[in-house]
C-alpha cells in the first residue's frame, strides 16, 4: 500500500524517492511557528498549583489529551483521569492527505499511550452516563467515577445510519468514499477516487446539514478530485458537482465567495440547499432533499459526509443545549468565551463536543483548551481568570495538490491571519501547502504534549 502511494505520488510530481530529512525546512517550519503557536494563557506564572482535586477528562482525542497535558503541567497533587475506550490515536487533520493519496494511513495512526502525560491515569472504557448533578460519570463497564471537575472531550459521532441505504462497509466500494470515517476509510476513499480519476464520469460532493468537523474538508476533497481528473487527462470526460446544504459554500462569507470563484474557474458545478438523505449503491443514485422536494443525482464517485451529532451519552445527559439550533444535535451548552458549562460550573466542554459556533478543528482545540484549563486552574487556586476564546480556528484549504489557502477566522467571521501581509489568507499558495504537509502534524503532536 505504501508502495502504491509513493508510486502515484512520484508519477504526479516526478520526484525521486528520498527519506524525510532536512534542516532546509527551517524556513517553512519557523514560519509555521506562528500559525498554530500563538501563545496559550494557562499557567503563565510557571509555578504549579497545589490541589487534591480529582479531574476527570472524558475522551482522549486531541482535546482530551491536550487538556490532560496542560493540567498535568499546571497542577501538583491533582488526580487526573482520562477515560477513553479507543487505544489508537487518529491525527484527523491528516485524513484529507490520506484520502488524496499523498500520505499512507500510517501517517495518521498512533496510540493514545504515546501522549499520556506522566501521572495521568487512563481508563480504557467509554463513558456511558454523565451525571453532572451527582458529579460523577459511569463507564460502559459499570464503573462509577466521581469528580471535582469534569472536562468533556468526547468528540462527536458520525451518523452514517441517518442516510438511508448508507453503510460504513460501503466506503471504498461502488464509487463511495468518505475520508472522515477512519484512517482505513480515508485510504479506501483514495482507492475509489483514484479509480474515478482514471475514468472520469460524474463526481458528486456534499456536506451535511449538521455542525461538522472541519467544514473545509468537503471543499478540499472536491478541489483535489478535480485536480486529479485534470492531471490524468480525464477532466473533459468528467462532471464535478458540489452540493451545499445551505446557500453558502463556507460559513465565513468572504471565504465562501472566494471558493465560489475558484469553483467557477475550475468548472465545478454548484447546487445550493441539497442535503443527502439516501443512497442506492446498486444503481449509483444519491437522493437529496431540496426546498422543492427530493432530487436524484447519479454518480460514478460520491464523497459521503454523514450528519454529525453528539454521542448518545451526551445527548441523554443534562449537558446539551435546551433551546436553539443545537438541541437536536446535542452539543454541550458551554459559554463560548470560557468553554465552561452554563449550568454546571465545574464542567467544561472542549473540542468537537462544545456547542459553539465555528471550530471543530484541531486549531480550535489548540486555542480552546488553554482557556478552559486556565479557568479551571484559577478556580482551584481561588482566583479569577480573564482568558477568553474568541473563536479562532484555521483551515489550510487545499485548492489543488501543491497549493492551499491558509484561512484563519473567528466567531465574528473576521479573517485573523497569523502572517498578515506575508501569507495572504485568500491566495492559493505553495507555502500554505508546505505548512499543511510538513508543519501541521509536528505542531499538533507538540500540542498533545502540551508543548505548543
Amino acid at each position, binding site marked *: 500500500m505504501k508502495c502504491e502511494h509513493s508510486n502515484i*505520488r512520484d508519477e*504526479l*510530481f*516526478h*520526484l*525521486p*524517492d*528520498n527519506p*524525510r*530529512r*532536512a*534542516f*532546509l*525546512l*527551517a*524556513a*517553512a*517550519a*519557523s*514560519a*509555521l*511557528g506562528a500559525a498554530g*503557536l500563538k*501563545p*496559550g494563557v494557562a499557567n*503563565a506564572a510557571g509555578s504549579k498549583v497545589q490541589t487534591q482535586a480529582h479531574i476527570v477528562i472524558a475522551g482522549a482525542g486531541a482535546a482530551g489529551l491536550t487538556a490532560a497535558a496542560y493540567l498535568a503541567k499546571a497542577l501538583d497533587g491533582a488526580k487526573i483521569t482520562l477515560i477513553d475506550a479507543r487505544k489508537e490515536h487518529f491525527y484527523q487533520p491528516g485524513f484529507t*492527505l490520506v484520502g488524496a493519496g*499523498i*500520505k499512507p494511513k500510517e501517517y495518521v495512526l498512533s496510540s493514545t499511550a504515546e501522549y499520556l502525560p506522566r501521572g495521568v491515569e487512563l481508563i480504557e472504557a467509554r463513558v456511558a452516563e454523565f451525571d453532572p448533578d451527582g458529579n460523577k460519570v459511569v463507564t460502559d463497564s459499570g464503573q462509577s467515577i466521581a469528580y471535582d471537575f469534569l472536562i468533556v472531550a468526547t468528540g462527536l459521532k458520525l451518523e452514517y445510519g441517518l442516510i438511508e441505504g448508507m453503510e460504513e462497509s460501503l466506503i471504498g466500494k461502488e464509487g463511495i468514499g468518505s475520508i472522515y470515517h477512519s484512517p482505513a476509510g480515508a485510504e479506501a476513499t483514495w482507492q475509489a477516487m483514484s479509480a474515478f480519476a482514471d475514468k472520469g464520469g460524474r463526481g458528486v460532493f456534499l456536506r451535511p446539514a449538521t455542525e461538522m468537523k472541519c467544514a473545509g474538508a468537503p471543499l478540499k476533497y472536491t478541489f483535489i478530485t478535480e485536480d486529479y481528473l485534470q492531471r490524468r487527462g480525464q477532466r473533459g470526460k468528467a462532471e464535478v458537482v458540489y452540493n451545499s446544504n445551505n446557500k453558502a459554500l463556507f460559513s465565513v462569507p468572504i471565504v465562501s465567495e472566494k471558493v465560489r470563484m475558484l469553483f467557477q474557474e475550475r468548472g465545478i458545478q454548484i447546487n445550493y440547499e441539497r442535503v443527502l438523505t439516501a443512497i442506492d449503491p446498486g444503481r449509483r443514485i444519491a437522493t437529496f432533499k431540496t426546498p422543492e422536494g427530493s432530487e436524484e443525482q447519479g454518480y460514478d464517485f460520491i464523497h459521503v459526509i454523514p450528519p454529525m451529532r453528539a454521542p448518545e451519552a451526551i445527548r441523554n445527559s443534562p449537558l446539551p443545549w435546551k433551546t436553539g439550533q443545537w438541541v437536536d444535535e446535542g452539543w454541550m451548552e458551554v459559554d463560548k468565551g470560557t468553554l465552561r458549562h452554563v449550568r454546571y460550573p465545574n464542567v467544561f466542554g472542549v473540542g468537537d463536543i462544545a456547542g459553539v459556533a465555528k471550530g471543530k478543528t484541531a486549531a480550535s482545540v489548540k486555542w480552546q483548551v488553554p482557556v478552559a484549563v486556565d479557568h479551571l486552574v484559577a478556580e482551584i487556586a481561588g482566583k479569577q481568570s480573564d482568558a477568553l476564546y474568541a473563536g479562532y480556528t484555521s483551515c489550510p484549504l487545499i485548492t489543488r*495538490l*501543491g*497549493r492551499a489557502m491558509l484561512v484563519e477566522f473567528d466567531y465574528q467571521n473576521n479573517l485573523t491571519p497569523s502572517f498578515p501581509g*506575508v*501569507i*495572504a489568507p485568500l*491566495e*492559493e*499558495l*505553495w*507555502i500554505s*501547502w*508546505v505548512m499543511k*504537509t*510538513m*508543519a501541521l*502534524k*509536528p*505542531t499538533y*503532536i*507538540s500540542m498533545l*504534549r502540551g*508543548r*505548543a
Partner: protein
Amino acid sequence: MKEFDLLVILAVFQEMLGPLLWLLLAIIVLGTLAFVLLLIRERGVVSRRMVFSQTLSPLGGAFALILMAKVSSSGFTDAGGPVDWLLIALVFSLGLVGSGIILYTIGGWWSILRGNKPA
C-alpha cells in the same frame, strides 16, 4: 508560553525531525566551528578553493529544493505568490551557502590532513 516561543519552535522541530534534529544541529555547529578554525589556521580565505566550492554550490541549492519538494509532496509548478518565490529563494540560498561552506571546509581540512600546502 508567551515567553517561550523559541522553545515551542524547537518542540515542533523535534517532532518533525526526531533525533535527526540533534544530528543536524551538531553538523551545523561543528561545521561552522571547522570553517572558522580553517580560516584562522590559513589566515584568511584561499581564493582558488573558494571559487571551486562556489562553482559546485548551486548543486547544493538545487538539492535543497528537490529535498524540500520531496518532503512536502510538492511539484515544481506549485509556487502561487510572492511569498512562495521568497521561500524558494530562501531554501535555494540555504543549500547554496551551506554546501559552499561545507565543500570549502572539507577541501581545506582534507589538504591539511594530507599534509599538503594550502591549495
